[in-house]
Structure formats: structure tokens, C-alpha cells
């Protein structure tokens, strides 16, 4: 079974990720079991999928948190995709899901992000990391989650910017 880093620990990945459908999203077949569906499939089949407790949604980098919107609050898992590691849109998507749409479930990075992005991703609210490259040593990679212990900015993990903490 593939593995991932979640909340700092290496665990089995029990979710499967459904690729974007080539045909109509309304007609895409969603398998049983824990599955992460593309946004288009979620939007087209929301009425049925929302009945299931084991359906998550993944957003590609050209899809925004606003497109999932209030639905996020009811989902167990949302994933943000990195088509290439330098595409930094997922950082914003993650933060908006947490801060604006009050998403409390597992927020997972998927795709081609790299180890050295883990600390900033964690700060933006991502708590699970499923690397596309299965050869990566996840225990070692997880060390990068805490490259910094102190920060200037407000973010998901520390909503008070340093200047407010300095002042108190």
C-alpha cells in the first residue's frame, strides 16, 4: 500500500485518487471505498456523493478554493494538486480552505511538490503529504516540516503574526 506523511507520521494511504474524467463528469464512475474525486466530478454528482462518508475532493492548481466553497466544511478530505512543484497556487488554495471555509478535515498535498516545500505547506494548513514520487524516503522528508519554529507572518498554524506576539 502506498504511504504518506500525515500529521508528521508516516502511515498507509487508504485513499485512492480518481483522475479527471475524459468524458462527462456526470457520467464518471466513482468506485466504492475511500476515494478522492476531481472537483468536476464532485460538482456533477454532489447529490449522491455527499451521502457517502468516504468521498474527498481534489482541486487542481487552476481550480480555486472558492469553487469548492462551503462544500469543504462537510468533507473528510480535500487534496490540492501540484502539477509541477513550482506552481504555487496550492499554497493559497490551502490557506483559503482553512481560513475562509473553515475546512477541518485532512488537507492533503498531492502531485509533484518537493520535500523543501513541506514547512510552508504545513503553515498554509496542509497536514498530509502524498508525494507522486513513491521512491522518496518519507521519514527523512518529514524532517523538513519543521525547518522553522518561529515566523513573522500570520498563517493557519499560527494566526498571530510575530508583531502581535512581540507586543504581548
Amino acid at each position, binding site marked *: 500500500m502506498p504511504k504518506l506523511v500525515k500529521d508528521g507520521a508516516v502511515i498507509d494511504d487508504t485513499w485512492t485518487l480518481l483522475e479527471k474524467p475524459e468524458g462527462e463528469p456526470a457520467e464518471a464512475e466513482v468506485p466504492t471505498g475511500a476515494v478522492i474525486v476531481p472537483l468536476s466530478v464532485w460538482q456533477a454528482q454532489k447529490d449522491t456523493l455527499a451521502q457517502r462518508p468516504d468521498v474527498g475532493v481534489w482541486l487542481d492548481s487552476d481550480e480555486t478554493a472558492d469553487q469548492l466553497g462551503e462544500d469543504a466544511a462537510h468533507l473528510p478530505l480535500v487534496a490540492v494538486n501540484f502539477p509541477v512543484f513550482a506552481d504555487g*497556487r496550492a499554497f493559497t488554495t490551502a490557506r483559503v480552505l482553512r481560513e475562509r471555509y473553515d475546512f477541518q478535515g485532512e488537507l492533503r498535498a498531492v502531485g509533484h511538490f518537493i520535500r523543501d516545500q513541506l514547512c510552508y505547506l504545513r503553515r498554509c494548513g496542509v497536514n498530509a503529504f502524498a508525494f507522486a514520487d513513491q521512491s522518496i524516503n518519507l521519514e527523512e522528508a518529514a524532517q523538513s516540516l519543521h*525547518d522553522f519554529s518561529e515566523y513573522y507572518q500570520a498563517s493557519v498554524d499560527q494566526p498571530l503574526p*510575530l508583531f502581535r506576539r512581540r507586543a504581548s
Partner: protein
Amino acid sequence: MYIYDDHDHTILRQRVAQFRDQTRRYLAGDIPDEHFLPLRLQNGLYIQRLAPMLRINVPYGMLNSTQLRTLAHITRTYDKGYCHVSTRQNIQLNWPELEEVPDILAELAKVEMHCTQSSGNCIRNITSDQFAGIAEDEVIDPRPYCEILRQWSSFHPEFAFLPRKFKIAVSGSERDRAAIQVHDIGLQLVRDSEGKTAFNVYVGGGLGRTPVIGSLIREALPQEHILSYLEAILRIYNQFGRRDNKFKARIKILVKAMTPEVFAEKVNAEWAHLKDGYNTLIEDEIARAKSYFTEPAYEVLDDGEAQQALDAQAAESVAFGKWLQRNVRGHKQPGYAAVTLSLKPTGVAPGDVTDKQLEVIADLADAFSFGEVRTTHEQNIVMADVKKADLYALWQKAKVAGFATPNIGTLTDIIACPGGDFCSLANAKSIPIAEAIQRQFDDLDYVYDLGDIDLNISGCMNACGHHHVGHIGILGVDKKGEEFYQVQLGGNAANDASLGAVLGPAFKSEEMPQVVQKIIDVYVDNRNGDELFIDTFRRIGVAPFKERVYAKAS
């Protein structure tokens, strides 16, 4: 000047440790080149034509003498004994070894300096007015706000992988000396209708291959909202800026495509969510930041008396008088002046300075200017707080060290990027062209009479030499492997910013001194009294210049 507390030191130490580990993993073959690229760039390290180049941030241009001495030590120990002041007020090393960069960063961190985000697709070093805090036309000192922005932008988790680089400049005076309208974001500090501190926000300016003057999208934004408003802008850019084509990825392209009006609406809609959140600046923080930029211990001096003595010295020495005219400017404090040390003597690459010279500057700063200097985007060094009574002594020492060329603001105070001698992006060399032009105009009296002329040279369309906003702009181009130079006239980086118009077909390098000479001849022939070059150009247009420069030899 800002002084780090434990928090700042902790963050910077962790950054150095992070990059040390990344470098170790890269050298061990555990990080591929493609992944290491943004990591090293965001620590200032380029791989250049001949060797790596390390860009050290000088936040809003401020340096103290301790930092200058450390820079001297670093250039001597890790490099070939000289460095380069860039057009964004930073310091660049040309020959560091990759393996030693973590050590350089550690040495810099000890004196509260860093290379954080000095390159890469992230928020870059915040630049400002080299005369901040002392200018007679200053409305609000921009430096406390620059420091607040430096901290906000450093290691910002959301904006480290933007579509493209992102540059912010801040000005707090009536006359814009920070070229804010050609930055991704330009901030103009103003007083609002109630006298409170506020920002006019320009967005989408920039040079490069598509030069654009920024659009004013927000007037009089109250100061407490600056961080949340900037986050709204960055967030719109991060989500919607183009990522398919690096040449269309700057925010200026997005603003243009959306129109500034629509872009502003999007920013406002995003800002509605962020406004009044934790990023809202508090009084304590603004006061804390301001506490580091208080006035130095000025003596109470009689300005009239000091000026009289100076005038007498200038009457004795014509050379000193000229230096006073060109390299010394007024100060809001009676009896004080600001001095610009010229890094543009003929025969030296514009902005280059040696380790020994850095130490001389440190000594001069300690002796004459409260131990601080500023780098300028024109690639010179400013000593901001010199007693008028000390100017003659300073001039004599500066002359010996080679800093007293009385050419500030003149034709030979050339802005030039490192160009093809160093930079792997360049199409053509910049430094030899600058030198050839300086040699053409070696008559100081003549140059002096010509008055203020900005001559800017870039070795490629990335425009590090700001050629679009030079009164005379020179752009290196490559034509079938040969270096050519295109000339633009009429650019201007000040408040009435404008972009230069291309004169015509490009020239060979050896033609350039004569081309510039002909341009100057047309100006002199058409000049009314003491009219400035840019004003003559705006009055008579490009045609007479074109006619003379491209006239067939008869």
C-alpha cells in the same frame, strides 16, 4: 537602523541551517538541479556565466559600518576582493563557491544581513529612497514601513512560489527617488485628509521586455491595513497570474489583461475577507518600528555660519566647489548635508567596490556619519548625516579613496547592469560600453555643464540597468552572435515617469561613444539656457536626434 531581537536571530539562524542542509543534500546528489534551483535562488545564489553570483540583500539600502566591514571580509575571504552595488540597492559577489555559500550566509547572519529572497519567484528585497529620513521634501519616513514589510515578506509561506519575481518599492517624499511606478507594487506614503499616515498603492509597473508604468489602484489606504491589502494583491496574483509563459508572468501582464479597474475590484473583494484580521497593524508595532529610525544625535548648529564657511572653501577650491554642487545635497537638519560617494570613476565598472574601499567607507561612516551609509539604486553610496563643517575633510579623504568624482546625476554617473562580462542572461556587455562613454566625456567641466542626465545601460531586455527609464537608455541586443546596442531617448524614473522611445536601428559597440556624443550635441544646440536634457527632449521630440545620429556622412 533596525536592530534584530531574539526572534529575528532565531528565524535567520534557522534559514541558514535549512540552506546548509539543502546544499549538503544537493552536493550529495539527493536534490536534482531543477529542484535546487528555486532553493538556491531564494538564498541569493545564481549560477552565472563564469561562476556563481551571490546577491546579498541590503534592506532598503541601509548599512552600518560593522556590516560594511563584514562585507569587506567576505569579499576578501570568499571572493576576489571586490563586489558590486546593484540597481536594486543590493550587493553582489561574483565568484563565491557554492560549497561556501552556507558559511557566507552564517557570517552575514551574525551582522543581521541575509540573502533571503534576493532572487527567485518571490517577494524580493524592499527598496526605498536613499535619502529617507533626511530629505527636505520628505512627508513620512518610509524606513519603519520598509522594515515591517521586510519582516512580513520574509519566509512568507503562501507567496514563495509566485508566477514570477515580485518587487516592492516605498517612497515617502514628494519627489520619488525610489522609482515606485516601475515596480510590481509601488507604495507612496501620504497624509490623508485627516492628516493620518496612509499609502497610495500602485500596481503592475515594471521594466523588462514589456515596460509598463504602474496603475494607482488605491488612494490613501490607512497604514494599519497595508499588510492585509498587500496579501490581497499577492493572493490575486498568485492565483491568476500567468504560469504558462515566463515572459508573460509578471503582475503587470495580469493587470493589463484584466484592466487596472477590474484588478482593483478583485483585490477589494479579496481584501474584504482579510481586512481587520490579525494582519492589521497595531500601534505598538508601528511605534516599535519607528523607534529604530529616530534621528541620530545631531548637534545644534548654525546653518548660516556653516554654509558661509563652506562657500569660502569652495571659492578657494574650484574642484571642491564642483563636488559640493554635484555630490552633496541638502538636509533637513541645519548644519548637516548628505554626501554621495561616487562609485563611477572612469575605468571602474559602475557600482564596483573593493574590500579595501568597503573598509574605507566604514571608517568614513564612523568618522563622519554616525556609522551608517545607504546604497542607492544609481549604484552609489550615500553618507546621510555629515556636518557641513566636516565636508572639506571628508572630500579630501574620499578623493584619496577614489570616491570623489564630482559626477553624481551627470552623464558619466552611468547605471549599468553587470552585463555579458558576468551575467548568463545578457545578450551583450554593459561595462565596456559604460567605460567607453565615460572616456568620450572625460572633460569634467563639460559634463558638469550638461547638468542632470541619466544614462542607463542594460545588457539584455531584462532591464536590470533600467534602460527604459534613462533619459538616454542603451540596450544590448544580439544580432546573429554579434553585440549591438539599441538607443532609447526620453525615459524618466521620477514622479513624471516615462518610458524611452527607440531612436532607430542598433549600433555596433565601437560606434556608441560617437552616437552618445551626437545626442548630446543636439541637446546642446537646442538647449534653452540651463534647460535639462529631459526637458529639451520633451520640447523638441525625437526627430532632431534621429536626424543627426543617422545622418549619412557627406
